[in-house]
């Protein structure tokens, strides 16, 4: 059964302070994030005691100011970061969309990039073959699919990334802010696909500043502030 459970998860980034002669005047930031020092190191507490639970069919919208820990939380869920404290348990096949260009090679064609992206996500050659046409159709790139990725516009790249990430029907889909990049007709298509995914008892976690997008897509809403959960409704 697809599920996500976090217990008191914290994550601290350690930064090595460069030697500098200038005075360390500090200003309070109006944004999220807490800077502290421990010894010669600076640390940023990006997540602080985060606990929540999601079950099959949940679509969670993450909101909060820049630097409040949304991206960090998504990366913890994906398994890129190991939390500094707390436990996390995830059941289900996870796919994620962080940054449009991650995993795409600018010099390779769209088609070749789909193959590479598939290999990276652990698809078999047969699965890639089978999904290729569907991805190309969904992205509506047409003949552009055989042009190098660097020739794509932001929106085109977003279409390809979204089509590829959702093609194999991940049970858990994590998405960072950029999903607003596509045009209106693509947004509509993307929403339909996310609906399908959630109906198949999947989980979606979506970070966005776009409140209407969150309202349209999500069933739950979590507000992060300074790495803490401010509200979960």
């Amino acid at each position, binding site marked *: 059964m697809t599920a996500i459970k976090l217990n008191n998860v914290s994550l601290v*980034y*350690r930064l090595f302070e460069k030697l500098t002669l200038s005075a360390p005047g500090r200003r309070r930031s109006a944004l999220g994030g807490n800077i502290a020092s421990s010894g010669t190191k600076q640390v940023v507490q990006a997540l602080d005691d985060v606990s929540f639970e999601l079950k099959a069919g949940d679509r969670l919208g993450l909101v909060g100011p820049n630097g409040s820990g949304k991206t960090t939380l998504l*990366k913890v869920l*994906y*398994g*890129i*970061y*190991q939390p500094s404290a707390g436990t996390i348990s995830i059941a289900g096949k996870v796919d994620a969309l*962080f*940054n449009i*260009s*991650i*995993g795409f*090679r600018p*010099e*390779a064609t769209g088609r*070749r990039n789909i*193959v*590479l992206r598939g*290999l*990276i996500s*652990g698809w078999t*050659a047969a699965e890639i073959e089978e999904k290729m046409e569907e991805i190309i159709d969904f992205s509506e790139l047409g003949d552009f699919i055989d042009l190098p990725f660097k020739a794509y516009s932001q929106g085109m790249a977003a279409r390809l990334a979204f089509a590829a990430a959702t093609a194999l029907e991940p049970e858990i889909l994590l998405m960072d802010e950029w999903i607003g990049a596509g045009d209106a007709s693509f947004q509509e298509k993307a929403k339909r696909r996310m609906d399908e995914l959630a109906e198949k008892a999947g989980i979606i976690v979506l970070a966005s500043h776009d409140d209407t997008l969150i309202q349209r897509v999500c069933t739950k809403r979590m507000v992060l502030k300074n790495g803490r959960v401010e509200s979960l409704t």
Partner: protein
Amino acid sequence: MIAALSGAFDDISKAIRLHRVWIALAHEDIGDQHRRTTLGPLWMLVNYFAFVGTFVFVFVTKDAINPSYIAYVAIGMLVWFYLNETISVSVSLFQREASFIQGTTLPLFVYVMRLTMQCVIRAAYSMAGCVLILLLSGYGTNMNWLFSVPGLLLIILATPAFVVVFAFLGAFFPDSEFIVGNMMRVGMFFTPVFWVYSGQEGVQKYAYHWNPFTYFLESVREPITAGTFPMHALAVTGYFCLGLWALALLLLGLYRKRIVFLI
């Protein structure tokens, strides 16, 4: 300790299951480096050939004109350049792969194998250049050349361990990129790449006996220049590889989850 090793083996076995990823990426890398060039990867053959050719045909003195010295230098440089390039590019491996490491959950060993694969492909072109020089210099082929195969295999086997050790070094101590770069440049003179050791005293003696690279070189070169099976060189190289792999597994096991925070 046990946990570290099992973590390392977990990372490695996942990476081996994803072998198609690093094979594909390594080919893309080589392709990208030579995109829009006419000769493509053949440039690597030309580079080696031009460098070693210049060295042996311009600097040859009367005692060095003999084909066995040319073979000595050609093979020495083949192995040296391979190890030198592998180590020098390894130091910045994780920084170069930062966007993948921060955006995907691929095991770290995938990047290690990607670089290994890339280095081996490049070396294959240099090796073609080396064989060409051996043939051009009038150095006949013979069955003793086969004794070089174990040495070559050992070098390839050692490559991922070299990559892991130097990649972690570079991630934890960014200064090491410059230190290693300088050491490798100087190292060429402390390794019997183009000088022949024949029992002299002094620096050369230590540089010959206490330099692990000597044994890597000799285990490939001795069969061709001396026609003997390089028992001693292979043994030393073998032990060195074991030590290197032990270190590599330990680093991978203990610190692989930290890398993403360091780059």
